[in-house]
């Protein structure tokens, strides 16, 4: 027996409300992240990820309250990402009840944040979130052909995505959330090539994200080297249930909870 492949639903949260459409019946309030967290927990999710897409600072306090209420009711690991700038932001989230924090843009601007955060809180709660895409035509080529993006994939940085993942591990990240901006939203499957490339250069866990459309898309992502698989829309819209993903992984002789 070995550690199970983790299946992780991700909720986009704006000012305390779930953003993307939700298609669950029997819910009192499908826009409430806490209620959604409970549903996913009951369905067998191995972890939960909240992505805070709130722009305003008042919304940040709302997020802490959401984290607090979730940690009060849901007893599986919770990762919170989005808008984290400082180690104090991380401290506030951990105290509210988050187990891990996802760092993205702030680490691109100032990579030392990863080192400072992992020293203060331990690598196990620092997830480096990498939004990557193929360098578009006319863009500055990178060694691997993939570059890190910001602003939801709209802005390229010219930073090589594979090298950045390796650097993130060196600086102290305990996990990589690898989000393919090319595959994201296509529901055409995970970017297997990119997962393989990142797996080859890091030995911390890799979460594959972006592109899940059918249950058949999940086993190849694990075979390509992902330790965990993350999806948002397909779960929220009820197109795929957590249990179905696990059944397919199990049929593929991969270990699941």
């Amino acid at each position, binding site marked *: *027996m*070995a*550690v*199970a*492949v*983790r299946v992780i639903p991700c909720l986009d949260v704006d000012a305390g409300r779930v953003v993307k459409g939700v298609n669950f019946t029997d819910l009192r309030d499908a826009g409430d992240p806490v209620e959604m967290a409970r549903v996913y*927990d009951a369905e067998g999710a*191995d972890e939960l990820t909240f992505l805070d897409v709130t722009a305003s600072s008042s919304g940040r306090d709302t997020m802490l309250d959401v984290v*607090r209420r979730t*940690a*009060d009711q849901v*007893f*599986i*690991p919770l990762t919170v990402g989005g808008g984290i700038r400082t180690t104090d932001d991380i401290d506030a989230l*951990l*105290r*509210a*009840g*988050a*187990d891990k924090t996802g760092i993205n843009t702030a680490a691109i601007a100032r990579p030392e944040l990863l080192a400072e955060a992992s020293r203060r*809180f*331990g*690598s*196990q*709660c620092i997830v480096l979130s990498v939004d990557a895409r193929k360098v578009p035509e006319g863009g500055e080529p990178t060694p691997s052909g993939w570059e890190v993006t910001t602003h939801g994939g709209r802005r390229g940085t010219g930073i090589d995505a594979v090298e950045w993942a390796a650097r993130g591990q060196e600086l102290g990240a*305990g*996990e990589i959330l690898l989000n393919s901006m090319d595959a994201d939203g296509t529901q055409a499957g995970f970017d297997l090539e990119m997962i393989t490339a990142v797996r080859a250069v890091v*030995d*911390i*866990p890799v979460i594959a994200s972006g592109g899940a459309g059918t249950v058949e898309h999940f086993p190849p992502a694990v075979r390509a080297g992902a*330790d*965990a698989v993350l999806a948002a829309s397909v779960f929220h819209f009820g197109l795929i249930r957590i249990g179905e993903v696990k059944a397919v992984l199990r049929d593929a002789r991969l270990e699941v*909870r």
Partner: protein
Amino acid sequence: MSRIVVLDYGSGNLRSAERALQRVGADVTVTADRHAALEADGLVVPGVGAYAACMAGLRAVDGHRIIERRLAGGRPVLGICVGMQVLFELGVEWGERTEGCGQWPGTVEKLKADVLPHMGWNTLRVPTGSTLFAGLDADTRFYFVHSFGVRHWTLEESEVLRPPLVTWAHHGEDFVAAVENGALAATQFHPEKSGDAGAAVLRNWLRDVVG
């Protein structure tokens, strides 16, 4: 209702431990107060992050002596994750050697595995007679997140002392996942993050160890 203190020595997410214990019926206080920690029916020692930092934090609140005093009186203590690791003799992380509480012999060191941290839900090999895992199926999974562990159990055998029950798990190699030793118990995994399975372990501890 059992009065439980979760020892607050500056380590990570304590809210989950507090809530998970409340969920199974404990009256929980999160504090570093020496008197409260000594007097509680059960003491929970959590811990995340670096061994050296946790041990320093524990010493700063006199936690190692509080544990010692409680055990001398047969009063239950439960270590979780790094809170388990610090109960052993020695921690070796990144070349730094840190003396632990020394309740059990053994060294906490980096696991040999392809992917670290060992992060996620894994199964256990539970010995017969276990109290913590009573009533749980053999393939029940618990949530782990750690890179270091106890790879060898080295307590000498005794003709007269009842041996501790050691539960093992596997990630790259075998490591100690839990120890049950009279009033002293510990888990490398996080029962407070292990859903219903974790709640069952905490319930067993409250009912049959804390009493």
